[in-house]
């Protein structure tokens, strides 16, 4: 091919080749998108994003774990001591500074996603150095507000969006 010369042919041929190659590349890229996007959450999964929980049977000092979006959510009816302990912490000293008020809409109810922010294990309740949660996988300690205090986890336990429909029912998601 390289030996073929034609006064005006070279530029047109080059343009054609570049256009053809570019077109094929764009087409391949566009065709790849559906193959990638199909792995994203499907419409039915996205629709199943809220769950309602009845809180009336949870005594002070008790916790329950409910399933939300395939993950455990801890709902803890905190004791007065726990609330006081969580509020007394110097926020500035925390690895992930957050006040307890930012984490609990109603102080007696702590609602958070029970997935350790380190590598996704489920922490154990009322354990560890801070009387909160302790992740057995790599030893992360969370306090009574679910904030990371010690260990490899970088962030506090996540708070899902939730609202109280009434005093005894909360809607998560």
């Amino acid at each position: 091919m390289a030996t073929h010369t034609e006064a005006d042919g070279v530029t047109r041929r080059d343009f054609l080749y570049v256009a053809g190659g570019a077109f094929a590349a764009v087409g391949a890229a566009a065709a790849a998108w559906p193959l990638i996007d199909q792995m994203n959450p499907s419409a039915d999964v996205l629709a199943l994003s809220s769950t309602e929980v009845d809180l009336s049977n949870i005594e002070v000092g008790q916790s329950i774990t409910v399933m939300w979006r395939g993950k455990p959510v801890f709902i803890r009816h905190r004791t007065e001591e726990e609330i006081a302990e969580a509020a007394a912490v110097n926020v500035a000293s925390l690895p992930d500074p957050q006040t307890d008020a930012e984490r609990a809409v109603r102080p007696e109810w702590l609602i958070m996603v029970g997935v350790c922010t380190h590598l996704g294990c489920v922490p154990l309740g009322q354990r560890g150095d801070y009387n909160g949660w302790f992740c057995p996988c790599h030893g992360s300690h969370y306090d009574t507000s679910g904030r990371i205090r010690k260990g490899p986890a970088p962030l506090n336990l996540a708070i899902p969006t939730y609202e109280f429909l009434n005093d005894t029912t909360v809607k998560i998601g």
Partner: protein
Amino acid sequence: MKKLIKTIGVALAFSAFASFGAQASEGGALKQVDWSFNGAFGQFDKAQLRRGFQVYREVCSACHSVRLIAFRNLADIGFSEDEIKAIAAEYEVQDGPNDDGDMFMRPGRPSDRIPGPFANEKQARAANNGAYPPDLSLMAKARFGGPDYIHSLLTGYEDAPEGFELGEGMNYNPVFAGAQIAMVAPISDDMLEYADGTPATADQISRDVSAFLMWTAEPSLEARKSLGFRVMLFLVIFTVLFYFINKKVWKPVKRGEQV
């Protein structure tokens, strides 16, 4: 001779391909409706689909389910989120088990599938004289002719001709395979009042619900056609481009040069 054989071959090829379509007319000729969603650019008429949903709710849903449709899907045909929540809440959906281990009923949510009239096939048959009212979600794709078939069936009831032996509890409808159908003619003029004020003739009602069932069967129709147009456009340009590239590449060979 060669040409004749080739012609016969092509004709046979087409008739073999078309023979699926030929079976469509076996149950009697269908009315060919000029649907808004026909053709390469045809899209759904959303107002018609909403009327069709009203027909389904007020008429068909007494016996038939649309089990593949969730309330949230109604957003596709123009219902707002609040309207969908309100519609869903009108239905009772089974949930559970609760903390006592019992199943319980609660108001529907947008993520729920639209509950059908019967819990299972046995219950449906028991309530319908042994006949099973089929689920309608895919009906527009599960019969030759699709929405034309549904419309023709709904408006195809006649008196049985002289000498036709009709089974007990059966109705004569030449569109239906075997011409005997357990379903009583479901649609009549002014049997309902459309929310949008469209005159509710039997023909209109039948068209609207047929269009609605086309949507339940093929909700991706609009996305498919609009993506299809872009893909075809791309492929036409791609093909023309490579036609010229190919011509250019072969030019020296066609001229007799050795490569």
